[in-house]
């Protein structure tokens, strides 16, 4: 067979051989070649060495409170619309778009009449002192979220403009 290292396309075969992803018949042919080709043998040896080295790089375990923090963020970011609608939607109910639209209108109207959306979040009961003012943390976090989203969008638009140049 031709030496796989003669072309990049075929060199990928050597990579697949080292990861044992080659068809057994093809692997057998390649193995016979490697036995007589110093360059391919060196490639295979070095590739195995790289993988052994990478195996040594262990990642730390995930924090024990990862899930709790995530669910907290999800809970914080559920909008007041979804909060209004949650009691009407059993978990396993398939959502019917037409019924949903009608239900949304009714619920939102009822919600606005009976339960006006809160003007601000959780620190309203903490009295302000003359020296120390309070902020609404949800608004600050909303601002940070909005900035992240808009900045990412800005990057994409810039990349798009740069690509045209």
């Amino acid at each position, binding site marked *: 067979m031709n030496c796989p290292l003669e072309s*990049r*396309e075929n*060199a*990928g075969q050597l*990579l697949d051989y080292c990861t044992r992803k080659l068809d057994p018949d093809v692997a057998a042919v390649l193995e016979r070649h490697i036995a007589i080709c110093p360059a391919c043998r060196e*490639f295979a*040896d*070095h*590739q*195995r*060495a*790289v*993988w*052994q*080295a*990478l195996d*040594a*790089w*262990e*990642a*730390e*375990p*995930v*924090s024990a409170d*990862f*899930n709790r*923090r*995530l669910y907290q*963020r*999800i809970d914080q*970011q559920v909008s007041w619309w979804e909060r209004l609608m949650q009691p009407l*939607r*059993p*978990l*396993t*109910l*398939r*959502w019917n778009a037409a019924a949903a639209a009608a239900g949304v209108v009714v619920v939102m109207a009822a919600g606005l009449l009976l339960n006006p959306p809160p003007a601000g979040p959780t620190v309203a009961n903490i009295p302000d002192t003359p020296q120390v003012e309070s902020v609404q943390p949800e608004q600050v976090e909303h601002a940070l979220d909005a900035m992240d989203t808009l*900045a*990412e969008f800005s*990057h994409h638009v810039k990349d798009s403009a740069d690509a045209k140049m």
Partner: protein
Amino acid sequence: MSERVKTDMGGATAALDLDAALMLRVKEGDGASFGVLLDKHRSSVVHFLFRMVQNHAVAEELAQEVFLRVYRSRGTYEPTAKFTTWLFRIATHLALNSLRDGKNERSQERLDDDTHDMPVRQVADIRPSAEQSMVYQAKLKEIRRAISALPDKQRAAVLMHKYEEMEYSQIAGVLSCSESAVKSLLFRAYETLRARLAHLA
């Protein structure tokens, strides 16, 4: 390894990977299925992100964002690709953004900071000697530097290929490029890594 299950979708039968089936249940409002997906993929996402950005705190924060986006997208989820392809596409996208923005420039763990790199799992009766520990730390530093020196997309491709054992086609789906482009990325990346790391074995 994905498990193939059959499920009905609007009257038509289709083979889905199990994760995609779970995500469809999340779409229907089944929060428990989201928990299953989270528990199943949390570690691999965090570890992938850690090796991309080389900062554990940033990696966890990015991973939180990944799953937040998965959750937010539940309403329009369609299994047009494997679930893990979609998941890692989001993760890679966020990691590349983070690297590009230099968000972890000041917070990136210094590559010579050894305190985070000790392997957590140590069998109680086999403790490394001080010398073994030093050798290990030196080796780890070289590995991290070699990975860090790869261009971002090559880095992502190698990490998915090596640690997630993804096929070329799936890596191509994550990176939105052709399989031949993935092979080219990997070839160049491993060429660089062989030059820098082969002596460590």
